[in-house]
């Protein structure tokens, strides 16, 4: 923390950005935002989607996305007005003084160019460095960021390296010209939880060692605690609260900041033991010895010898990183994919392997809620039709009955009944996810497979969906299989947990037992990756992570 205020590196005053829709109407999306960035300091812009945080950070570079334009205010970079520069001067400024790390490096790297060519492009074409000099500096940055094979990794194309590596390579691209200000826009959001802390640590070290000032954009308060000196909380394009990190975290003043704190992805203080006593009871659904694979001969094994059971009214959390096989397991249970061997039993009766062979009565019992509500809902069908169809198909309701049921169901998921006449694109992300859930409920199932249904949502909205799930379960005695990579969420809502890694369940049992030491190394790695609010968490977590990863590399499933 710097208490003496030197001349700010960047001074943003009254920044206002408006968006123009197709009819030419203007909406203000960033309204009168002011803040300073001191040399070498890190300020975090935090807020949910639509809060204007990305728009502000782009505005600092004198850029507005197509359809938006900066209508007022000033951005001064050490006394030089960024917004008044002609385009060629702006281009020089963007390549050298203020640089940007985008949210998804996988999408933001050019797939048709080698990584090195993109990293060194600006210093080489502006003549600031020769190609050889730039390459040497790039390799130094790759090494500093902890990338493997720093001498050769840049010769690859973006699709040939992993997401976590790409994100670091993008940081190297941003740092190559030694910028005065680095803008990081949700740089770890698209990564797996256990990769996230390694990348975050690399960024933090890089910023600290180069004494670069940075603007860190995120929706996750616990991440910000690790890197930022100051926090600016935003909502609907307006400033809600602005202050030093310690103060915001220890004593948030605005109610909205407190709501953000409450919904942050941190582990609950205490993990409740399951509500249902472990009386031996016939489970609703059982998975027995399932092995499954992809490929022409299903030779690429995605699941190995899976046993899992889900009781009546129970929530079973299935956690693991991308590629662990958790979604495949959901697909097997719902019959979207047939196993190579093993079986799925409902009420002790084996289910047919594929959806097409299952009786309608069986299909009705197990419904699926997909991750991306905006993709899973037909944008050209009214909500009433989307919800009414499964009612008629599974329950044989007539038109009038299903209309009444749609209204009732919409109330049940806390949406206005008038939404029956709306189309999915007119709804917000959280509302769409409610419709997505309502569609699964429309069949009156006993089990809903929820595949990462809160992962794409802002923390506060996600919390509301989880509350809804809990209340539905209480009223309807529903069972959930909750697939996620977020162990903190699972710790709050699940009765049982299955931890998956590389196609196997490495540990399963009641939630309190699985998450209380001693646990499997991989479970510990996942637990270790959940950010904590205290500001000194990151360094410790990275250290622990390296130890656990080394231990895991020696386990039998990793040797496959």
């Amino acid at each position, binding site marked *: 923390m710097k208490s003496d205020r030197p001349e700010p590196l960047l001074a943003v005053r009254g920044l206002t950005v408006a968006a123009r829709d197709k009819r030419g109407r203007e909406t203000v999306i960033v309204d009168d935002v002011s803040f300073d960035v001191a040399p070498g300091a890190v300020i975090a812009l935090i807020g949910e989607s639509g809060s204007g945080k990305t728009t502000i950070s*782009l505005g600092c570079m004198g850029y507005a996305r197509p359809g938006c334009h900066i209508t007022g205010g000033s951005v001064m970079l050490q006394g030089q007005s960024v917004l008044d520069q002609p385009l060629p001067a702006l281009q020089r*400024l963007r390549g050298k003084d203020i640089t*940007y790390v985008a949210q998804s490096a996988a*999408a933001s790297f050019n797939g048709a*160019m080698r990584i090195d060519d993109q990293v060194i492009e*600006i210093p080489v074409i502006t003549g600031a460095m020769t190609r050889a000099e730039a390459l040497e500096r790039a390799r130094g940055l790759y090494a500093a960021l902890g990338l493997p094979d720093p001498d050769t990794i840049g010769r690859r194309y973006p699709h040939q390296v992993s997401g976590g590596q790409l994100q670091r390579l993008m940081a190297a691209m941003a740092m190559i010209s030694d910028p005065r200000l680095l803008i990081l826009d949700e740089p770890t959001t698209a990564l797996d939880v256990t990769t996230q802390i390694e990348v975050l640590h690399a960024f933090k070290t890089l910023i600290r060692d180069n004494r670069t000032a940075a603007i860190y954009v995120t929706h996750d308060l616990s991440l910000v605690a690790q890197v930022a000196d100051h926090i600016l909380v935003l909502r609907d394009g307006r400033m809600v609260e602005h202050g030093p990190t310690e103060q915001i975290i220890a004593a948030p003043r605005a109610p909205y900041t407190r709501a953000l704190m409450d919904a942050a992805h941190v582990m609950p203080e205490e993990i409740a033991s399951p509500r249902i006593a472990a009386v031996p009871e016939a489970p609703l659904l059982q998975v027995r010895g399932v092995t499954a694979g992809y490929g022409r001969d299903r030779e690429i094994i995605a699941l190995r010898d899976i046993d899992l059971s889900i009781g009546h009214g129970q929530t079973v959390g299935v956690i693991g990183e991308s590629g662990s096989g958790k979604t495949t397991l959901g697909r097997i249970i719902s019959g979207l994919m047939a196993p190579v061997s093993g079986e799925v039993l409902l009420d002790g009766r084996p289910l047919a392997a594929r959806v097409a062979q299952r009786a309608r009565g069986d299909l009705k019992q197990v419904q699926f809620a997909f991750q991306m509500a905006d993709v899973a809902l037909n944008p050209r069908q009214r909500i009433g039709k989307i919800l009414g169809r499964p009612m008629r198909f599974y329950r044989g309701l007539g038109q009038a009955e299903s209309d009444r049921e749609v209204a009732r169901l919409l109330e049940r998921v806390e949406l206005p009944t008038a939404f029956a006449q709306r189309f999915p694109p007119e709804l917000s992300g959280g509302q769409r996810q409610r419709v997505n859930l309502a569609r699964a409920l429309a069949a009156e199932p006993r089990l809903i497979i929820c595949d990462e249904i809160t992962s794409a949502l802002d923390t506060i909205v996600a919390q509301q969906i989880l509350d809804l799930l809990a209340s539905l379960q209480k009223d309807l005695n529903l069972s959930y299989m909750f697939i996620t990579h977020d162990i903190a969420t699972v710790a709050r809502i699940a009765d049982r947990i299955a931890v998956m890694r590389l196609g196997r369940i490495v540990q399963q049992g009641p939630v309190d037992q699985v998450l209380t030491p001693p646990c499997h190394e991989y479970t510990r790695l996942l637990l270790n990756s959940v950010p904590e609010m205290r500001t000194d968490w990151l360094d410790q977590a990275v250290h622990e992570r390296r130890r656990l990863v080394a231990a895991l590399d020696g386990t039998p499933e990793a040797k496959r």
Partner: protein
Amino acid sequence: MKLTEIIGRRLLIGVATLLFVSVLVFVGTEILPGDVAYAILGRGATPELLQQVRDRLGLDEPLVVRYFVWLTATLSGDLGTSLANGTDISTEIARRGSNTLILALSTAVVAVPLAVALGLLAATRPGGAVDRVISGASLALISFPDFLVAVALVSIFAVQLGWLPAIASIRPSYDLFDWIRVLILPVLALVFTILAHMVRMTRSAVLNVLSSPAIEMAILKGVPRRRLLMRHALPNAIGPIINVIALNLAYIVSGVVVIETLFNFPGLGRYMVEAVTNRDVPIVQACAMIFCSVYVLLNLAADILAVIANPRVRYPK
């Protein structure tokens, strides 16, 4: 999948397509109305003579047998002789084919670079004046059929202004200058018919890439506009552009039939039209096979080029 494997598979598919096409061509010409023997002999046909011709041509053999006889002959390069005047079809096709090739290549050389350049130009400022003129003009051109464009060109440049010949017949004495003079109108007519489609596809492919996060990143890196377009956007749009170019070059094949007939140009297209009028079945079959092969090969080439242009395929994980 490895690159060679992908290309090998595409080639196999190409060969299979051509075989299928040969069946279609053969059966198609078989069901043309009229008896070939009768067509050859005309009014003087007696039942004996008709039978003699049928025996000589093997017309009484079953369809399948005649197909394989024709296929093996065609594959070995023997295209047969004209029923109408007994000339060797291969020689005639070589002569007229090279004329058509000159016509088609001249069209491609003018149309492809022009289309890509106009498409890029339109994409630099979508909704701007240049874009509106290019998009409007190309939309208008798409709406006119090729024969109408050709007739309009002739009536303006040949009839009204008298600058260029209305007929494109070729004499052996022609030098390069005569060739160019004769080719301008037919080439222009063909360029107009295929240009618009390529311009529009190039524009939309480039615009599509320009709205991607990778391009926003390049803008935020301060990449100058021209480099943004040529180095960042174009290589990513090249796949769809190659495809639409190949499709339109293949379209020239059907275009030449119309244009050659209109301009009386001695190429393959007119050869085939004349043969259809005379029921000269071997010529129709040979020309149809050539046109179909060009179509299939161009699309095959586009597929392979698009695969090669994609680094994800060139450098697998």
